[in-house]
């Protein structure tokens, strides 16, 4: 049986007809064509599918699209503002916090929420905050730097 659902994705109401077993990650990628959300392990370990659900980061591979019918989703495509990339996105670029970019959408969503809750995290809080996201390229040092840099940019820009 298919279910008619409405998701508010990056501020726009989007409708889709999905079977109950459709993962939110697949709904975003296949039904809505938003391929910015990446899929790695599909059992919650790698974090690259992380999106914001009503502002809170969650694993889209461990969420059924039908469960979140009517809720708000922010994907990596929705992080930029009208003036261009968000401070978190710019910090990742500046600090070379990505190489192949596969893990990046998950990190960006996770870090955006992290800094909203904790605008000036300590080194330890940064590591704890990104501990559920795996990156096979960077070695994490530049990602941790980018989180601090993003915190600076957000503070400077009063966001």
């Amino acid at each position, binding site marked *: 049986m298919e279910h008619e659902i409405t998701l508010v994705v990056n501020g726009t109401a989007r409708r889709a007809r999905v079977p*109950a*077993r459709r993962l939110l990650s*697949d709904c975003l990628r296949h039904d809505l064509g938003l391929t910015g959300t990446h899929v790695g392990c*599909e*059992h919650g370990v790698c974090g690259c599918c992380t999106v914001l659900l009503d502002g809170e*980061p969650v694993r889209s*591979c461990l969420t059924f699209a*039908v469960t979140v019918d009517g809720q708000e989703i922010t994907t990596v495509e929705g992080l930029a503002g009208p003036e261009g990339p968000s401070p978190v996105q710019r910090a990742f670029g500046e600090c070379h916090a990505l190489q192949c970019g596969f893990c990046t959408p998950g990190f960006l969503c996770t870090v955006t929420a992290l800094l909203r809750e904790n605008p000036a995290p300590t080194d330890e809080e940064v590591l704890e905050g990104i*501990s*559920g996201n795996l990156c096979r390229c960077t070695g994490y040092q530049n990602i941790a730097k980018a989180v601090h840099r993003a915190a600076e940019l957000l503070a400077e820009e009063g966001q």
Partner: protein
Amino acid sequence: MKPPPFTYHAPRDLGEALETLAGVGGKVLAGGQSLIPMLNMRLAAPEHLVDINRVAALATLEAAPEGVTVGALARHAQVARADAHPLLGQALRLVAHPVIRNRGTVVGSLVHADPAAELPAVLAVLGGSVRLARHGQGERDVPAEEFFVGPMESAVRPGELAVSAFFPVLPAGSGTAFREVARRHGDYALAGVCAAVTLDEDLHVASARVACIGVGPVPVVADVTTECDRRPASTVDWAAVTRAVQEATEPEGDIHASAAYRLHLVGVLAEQALKDAARAAAQEAAPSPATG
């Protein structure tokens, strides 16, 4: 890695949820942080899923003097943020990663009954209970020692819903701690120990209990009050205590760690956790102004 097909039910209130469960059987979907990986890996293929995420009345957290009652839809993160129970807070920091904790539920973790999960040990060491409901039959409270039946097996029967879990508050002069060793931060532990220690007015150990994870089919509870011999923590014979804890466990080896290593770990962690708990209890009993 796609879940097998199932029929989906999304009840809006508790009555409807119980009726659906009684009618179709099937599995409850709470946070999905254990169930969906199992579906994705096709380790489970239930015909019906009853999604309780819309039953807002289950997202409760009630703190009373005698204990904390956690509703079936209270997420790990929500419970940790409320800071309602010290040992729950200590344990939740060790459960998975922050993002998983935004969805996973405390009650779901208890029902899932992974032998390496932290929260079952918390319920066990505190002597808590889980409240189960079934359509037309009222509720029953199952104490922790009967709730965990085997690895990944709890006392919840088909058609039943776990509506809440009760975590008792310890008496004054108590302290708790949770220690574990995992391969990577956020992974399930190779072994872990949570400890609850109560001191008397002279700061001698009046009661000491541990619950150990990863070293048996269910959380292994050991009461080591006798071994602590009503002494101050500084003069307790820790070797005897460690031995008593180790004797209560039945670790098995797997690709992550041998049985002998788990046995060793549980001894070391028990001593650390009990000492930490005794220190916390001493601070509670006589808070020193210098350290606040």
